[in-house]
């Protein structure tokens, strides 16, 4: 059973476009994280959100945690080829035993 579903699974867009990736669950999480993983490397932590309704911005990336702490979204403004990678959300239910989502593979074309 996959507790965290991400959508879309794949996304191919042109440089300069905006996009949103979703991470949904029927379970409540204490915190939720977003990672980016590039081929041949481990995931790199982008952000941790802990409060329902919380919004965090990291340059062109905006992360939101749902009010009920069951879902999250990642919005990228004016995507660049360097944003290409696998985006993963990961939830924690207070035990630091992170449950990862299915991943969204993003490709930004120049």
């Amino acid at each position, binding site marked *: 059973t996959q507790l*965290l579903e*991400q959508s879309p699974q794949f996304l191919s867009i042109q440089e300069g476009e905006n996009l949103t990736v979703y991470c949904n669950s029927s379970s409540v999480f204490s*915190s939720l*994280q977003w990672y980016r993983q590039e081929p*041949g*490397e*481990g*995931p*790199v*932590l982008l952000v*941790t959100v802990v409060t329902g309704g919380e919004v965090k911005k990291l340059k062109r990336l905006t992360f939101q945690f749902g009010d009920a702490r069951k879902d999250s979204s990642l919005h990228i403004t004016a995507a660049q080829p360097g944003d290409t990678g696998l985006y*993963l959300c*990961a939830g*924690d239910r207070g*035990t*630091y*035993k*992170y*449950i*990862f*989502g*299915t*991943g969204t593979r993003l490709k930004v074309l120049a």
Partner: protein
Amino acid sequence: DAGVTQSPTHLIKTRGQQVTLRCSPKSGHDTVSWYQQALGQGPQFIFQYYEEEERQRGNFPDRFSGHQFPNYSSELNVNALLLGDSALYLCASSRSGNQETQYFGPGTRLLVL
């Protein structure tokens, strides 16, 4: 300051064999977690080690075992390998008291034939 390192980078084994993977955590980190990432999937939590003991475990059979040494480095052992064990094995380290910030190593890619 070296980040998380893992060895070997790639490994090929046959069914039924045993394998040992190694991880050195980031300097100053005392907690090591292991994950299995199958092709096209997100990582799945195997277990976590702290103070040389397994502190938490995911939904993996007993064929998966581990160890943490006094210098905080860790090993993942898998016995009686199955074809389905083929995956990228990731190690992540963190500092107790700041466990939400995990740093991942590059992983060991295991292929079981």
